[in-house]
């Protein structure tokens, strides 16, 4: 079977690393990654704990298909209680780290307690050791990852670590792996920092077994045969996610200047086309190629090279920025660009590199900066607060200065590190915070995309574009009709995919019937489309119960007043608000929840959650 059947439990307070058997009953009900990691967190902690206290867990979880031959089988997750939202956090990443951990023989690593001084964890197959990390503390991801590999004499080892943002407990800090991949959302990097855990280096040589190898490869081949010739795969490989910017801008759902506007006049300077245009300085475009995660046959990742004459990267001490780097992807381009009113491509590239280097979530950083810009514009904060930095919308120099300060946890960067909700509350304007459950908006405006309005409002980790996938119905017609059903189905499907080890990007090309044969050939027992979808629904409902107990239940199923009360000024939804109230009752009913938004007893019994 493709579960390894083993968990590594690391007690940082005691300095112990202990192997324990995976709870197979839970694995069969919650699969792995997001579902299984959350189940362990929920069973081991109270929902009301302080997320930055030693009581919180930091769970690094793979899925049953992570590290197998399944296409896109490189996904892994970080699970904890979020210091940004106080809700359940599950941040998903790709790259090669997850597959390496699985190959080392572990389904999950659970960190508990807090180390007395900075440490890092070394895993080499079944050996796990904690080491002193004082030589690495205070330094960036980009510095320490190669040094750790060199120290352990293994260039094939994989590293996940935090930068200075996580160390300084920025509530928007990420865990970065393979230099350019991020478990970005919900502040999971701050939880790692709160435990004095700097990094995990892992090398695995054991492989991953499946129940029926021949049938598994047949299922993998069938799924690839469907994915490979699809235009969806071709487009993601050719344009990356960055292609979304022209779609949202044309449609009028591109959040601009802290969501006050829905279209950005500077989009042609920073879109997917702009990164392919040769620049004046050296005749080369920013985009240099595509990059795939472990086992992926899509390769949506972008690799780029910033203009070497760009001033912030000039000088010998900045040589690291003049190398190929990950990005731009749509979400970071949106957050640094339109959301902050900035159309300087190199500034966006630079900000993205610093976020990776210092371990910041690009969406939350950009969206929090845009809230700060609105606070600045209205005079709620001044240059006295910002240390002299002019935070006007459109100021690329402000983006550069603030990403550096936030990455290091210095100056006004400490306030940006609070995230948009706490920042806006601190300066007396909570209405400027474009958040749900305290998490910043990704690049889709809910007034124009009604399904996304419902998806944001009901997302268990706060505003998120990956917890549901109503994109195509939203772009096809501006209406609330039918959106509750799409959101419910894709929430359950993405919950199962996020718990499997696979990526959500094959999207509708792989329906549950395409996914089930891989589970069936890899795991003990019989796995059907219905069974895996029920796992997804169970995971979603379990997350809901946790959040309700944490004080973030139905009352948090809402959007900022800007989306609920201020009509869109342009685009396909001109004159409209998000109309959330039209969709929520149907959504609750479809879920088998009460009209008040609580899972009904019969629903809990059906899912084995009563």
């Amino acid at each position: 079977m493709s579960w390894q059947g083993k968990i590594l439990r690391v007690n940082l307070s005691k300095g112990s690393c202990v192997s324990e058997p995976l709870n197979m009953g839970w694995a069969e009900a919650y699969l792995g990654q997001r579902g299984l990691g959350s189940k362990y967190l929920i069973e081991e902690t109270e929902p009301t704990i302080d997320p930055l206290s030693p009581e919180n867990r930091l769970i690094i979880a793979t899925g049953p298909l992570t590290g197998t031959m399944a296409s896109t089988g490189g996904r892994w997750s970080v699970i904890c209680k979020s210091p940004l939202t106080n809700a359940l956090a599950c941040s998903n990443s790709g790259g090669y780290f997850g597959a390496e951990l699985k190959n080392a023989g572990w389904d999950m690593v659970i960190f508990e307690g807090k180390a007395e001084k900075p440490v890092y964890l070394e895993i080499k197959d079944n050996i796990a050791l904690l080491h002193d990390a004082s030589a690495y503390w205070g330094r960036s991801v980009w510095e320490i990852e190669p040094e750790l590999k060199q120290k352990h004499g293994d260039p094939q080892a994989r590293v996940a670590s935090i930068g200075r943002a996580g160390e300084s407990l920025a509530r928007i800090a990420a865990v970065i792996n393979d230099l350019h991949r991020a478990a970005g959302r919900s502040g999971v990097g701050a939880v790692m920092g709160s435990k004095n855990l700097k990094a995990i280096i892992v090398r695995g040589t054991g492989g991953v077994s499946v129940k029926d190898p021949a049938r598994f490869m047949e299922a993998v081949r069938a799924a690839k045969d469907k994915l490979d010739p699809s235009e969806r795969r071709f487009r993601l490989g050719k344009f990356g996610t960055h292609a979304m910017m022209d779609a949202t801008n044309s449609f009028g759902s591109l959040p601009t200047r802290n969501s006050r506007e829905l279209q950005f006049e500077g989009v042609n300077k920073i879109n997917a086309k702009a990164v392919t245009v040769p620049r004046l300085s050296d005749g080369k475009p920013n985009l240099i190629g595509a990059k795939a995660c472990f086992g992926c046959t899509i390769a949506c990742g972008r690799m780029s090279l910033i203009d070497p004459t760009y001033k912030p990267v000039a000088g010998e001490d900045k040589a690291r920025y003049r190398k190929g780097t990950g990005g731009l992807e749509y979400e970071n381009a949106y957050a640094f660009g339109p959301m902050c009113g900035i159309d300087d491509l190199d500034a966006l590239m630079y900000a993205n590199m610093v976020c990776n280097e210092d371990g910041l979530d690009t969406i939350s950083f950009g969206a929090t900066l845009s809230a700060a810009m609105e606070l600045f514009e209205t005079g709620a904060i001044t240059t006295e607060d910002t240390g002299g930095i002019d935070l006007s919308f459109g100021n690329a120099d402000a983006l550069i200065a603030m990403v550096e300060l936030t990455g290091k946890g210095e100056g006004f960067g400490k306030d940006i590190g609070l995230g948009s909700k706490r920042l806006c509350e601190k300066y007396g304007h909570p209405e400027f915070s474009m958040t749900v459950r305290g998490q910043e908006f990704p690049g889709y405006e809910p007034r124009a995309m009604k399904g996304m309005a419902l998806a944001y409002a009901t997302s268990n980790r706060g505003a998120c574009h990956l917890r549901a996938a109503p994109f195509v119905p939203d772009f096809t017609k501006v209406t609330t009709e039918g959106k509750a059903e799409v959101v419910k189905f894709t929430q359950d499907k993405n919950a199962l995919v996020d718990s499997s080890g696979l990526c959500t990007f094959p999207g509708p090309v792989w329906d549950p019937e395409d996914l089930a044969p891989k589970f069936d050939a890899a795991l003990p027992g019989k796995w059907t489309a219905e069974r895996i979808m029920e796992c997804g629904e169970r995971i979603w409902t379990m997350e809901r119960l946790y959040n309700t107990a944490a004080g973030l239940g139905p009352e948090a199923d809402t959007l900022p007043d800007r989306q609920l009360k201020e009509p869109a000024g342009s685009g396909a939804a001109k004159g409209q608000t998000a109309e959330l109230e039209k969709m929520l009752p149907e959504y609750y009913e479809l879920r088998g929840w009460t009209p008040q938004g609580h899972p009904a007893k019969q629903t809990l019994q059906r899912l084995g959650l009563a």
Partner: protein
Amino acid sequence: MKITVEVHSIACGTFPSGEGTLDLPDKTNLSTVLKQLALKTDPDEIYPALVNGTPIPPEERDQTFLKEGDHLVVFPPIEGG
């Protein structure tokens, strides 16, 4: 009549650059125009089409007639990332 066309992130046989002007007979409907663009899409894909910024769902495309000066935008059934 003439209309302007923008095609984003889909290979377009008629306008390889993704942009251009079409000269159409009067009373040409949207379905006909979309076929004329020779878009490279999967057979079952529903790709969004906006006329003057308004999305026209597939079931309304036969009955949507273009007029002089209209602006058509087409992009793929793209999902987030």
